[in-house]
């Protein structure tokens, strides 16, 4: 009963992408931790702005953003797949997760892409 319904496809791709994004996220997290907790551990606008004004960090943060959101939302889809047994319930929850992911992605992109450092 559990795997009935029209939304069952994509299991293998979802599975592979979850492993792949997870592995890349570990590497990105190491850099993230080294940079943010390596110094005195205090995060200020000045410090973040000087990094985020550069294309290299924008690229890093966008990659982090996309993979992080994907990994989290794809994980939620896997949980839903395990518990939501009817196609209707599953479809609704899937749509909610995808919508939440898109909202987060847009908010994150709006933070990172147009960012320019402002003076006080």
């Amino acid at each position, binding site marked *: 009963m559990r795997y009935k319904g029209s939304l069952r496809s994509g299991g293998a791709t979802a599975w592979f992408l979850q492993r792949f994004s997870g592995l890349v996220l570990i590497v990105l997290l190491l850099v993230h931790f080294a940079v943010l*907790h390596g110094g005195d551990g205090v995060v200020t*606008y*000045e410090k973040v*702005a000087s990094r985020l004004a550069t294309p290299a960090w924008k690229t890093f943060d966008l990659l982090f953003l996309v993979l992080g959101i994907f990994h*989290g939302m794809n*994980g939620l889809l896997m949980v839903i797949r395990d518990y939501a047994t009817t196609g209707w319930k599953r479809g609704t929850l899937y749509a909610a997760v995808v919508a939440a992911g898109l909202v987060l992605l847009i*908010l*994150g992109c709006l933070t990172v892409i147009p960012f320019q450092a402002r003076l006080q």
Partner: protein
Amino acid sequence: MNGYRWHTGSVAWFLHRLTGLALTLYIVLHIWVVHHLSLGPRAFDETMATVQSPLFRLLEIGLLGTVLYHSFNGFRILLFDLGIAVKAQRKVFWAAFVLTLAVLAYGGEKMLSHMMH
């Protein structure tokens, strides 16, 4: 326990789900907090003052433990999927567990000492 048999494999699976859900909730909050960057220096530093208060600093150590477990256990899952060390799955779980505690002790100590200054 309650008629359900808890093996290292099922405990590892359950903890992976639990930490995964917590991290997903965290990333939502994180993206929301960081978006204050686009509202200018004052808005961002005010938000940062809240999330860098002692309470949040302590919670952040919990976050480190959560992400460490999810990373090490995720790597363990990846190894098994590749057919590596499947027969040693219990040992690999304990290795992931000990690594989590070790790095948590190292990172937690650093974060605590930042908090004291």
